[in-house]
């Protein structure tokens, strides 16, 4: 599994407008909606579920990276999006550092295996400093997409 297998290309955000934790999560989920993935009512429910998960412990895993996620019945396959923040977001990460790269995942209720493989894949990519640096330097959706396609864990 590659990141380009589950990231929705049209939903990638090369420059987040929001700067707060809740704001960037909302912006990313809205971007997935704009790409045709949710109906209006589901949008709020998905955002709420992701924020609820964050309350159990931040998904800011350090290295300037966060992986906010949830399970939700509105999707029938694992989907995700990638966003880059220029200013950094206070995500209450484990290392206390701001987050610049976000990968948001939404999985169906009954597919824990897919979710775990996606996490494994994201972790392998983010472990690579060169990859994270390149991602942060991208200024367009296309350049982020090429990077995701290049990254073969």
């Amino acid at each position, binding site marked *: 599994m590659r990141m380009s297998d589950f990231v929705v290309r049209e939903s990638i955000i090369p420059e987040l407008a929001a700067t707060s934790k809740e704001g960037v999560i909302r912006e990313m989920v809205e971007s997935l909606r704009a790409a045709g993935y949710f109906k209006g009512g589901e949008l709020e429910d998905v955002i709420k579920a992701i924020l609820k998960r964050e*309350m159990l412990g931040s998904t800011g895993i350090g290295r300037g990276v966060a992986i906010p996620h949830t399970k939700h019945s509105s999707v029938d396959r694992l989907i995700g999006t990638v966003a880059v923040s220029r200013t950094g977001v206070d995500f209450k990460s484990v290392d206390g550092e701001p987050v610049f790269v976000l990968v948001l995942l939404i999985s169906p209720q009954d597919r824990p295996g897919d979710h775990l493989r996606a996490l494994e894949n994201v972790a392998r990519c983010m472990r690579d400093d060169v990859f994270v640096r390149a991602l942060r330097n991208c200024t367009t959706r296309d350049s982020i997409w090429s990077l995701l396609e290049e990254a073969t864990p």
Partner: protein
Amino acid sequence: MVGRSEREAPGLGALRHRVERPTPWQPGTQAMNGDNPRRTVTVPFPEGLHLRVAAEFAKRAGRFNCDVKVWKGTEAANGKSSLELLMLGATQGTELVLETSGPDAAAALDALSEFLSSPLDEANDPAPPPKG
């Protein structure tokens, strides 16, 4: 415009080098490293070693001075790094070997293997879920 995209994302070439795999641990080589305590645990969580478990494990491991390694077959993760633990992709039922080395190795092995063996999840939640 592939060429343009590549110029915008420096370092693409360097991505060819993947995350390096640690030298596999072989039963025969353990004498080289002394007698590090080890224990095998089976991942009990239905969703595998997911992010919250990995983060909590890394946090607990970080409280000890000793080195903590978690092996899945021949692949090892630094037990103090949630990112490396996630890279193991350990599903429910996977056998993992915990290895600790250092001054408080025995205590760490006890605490961490117990954490990884208990079918948590809610009992270890740092905060209750919000209402509604």
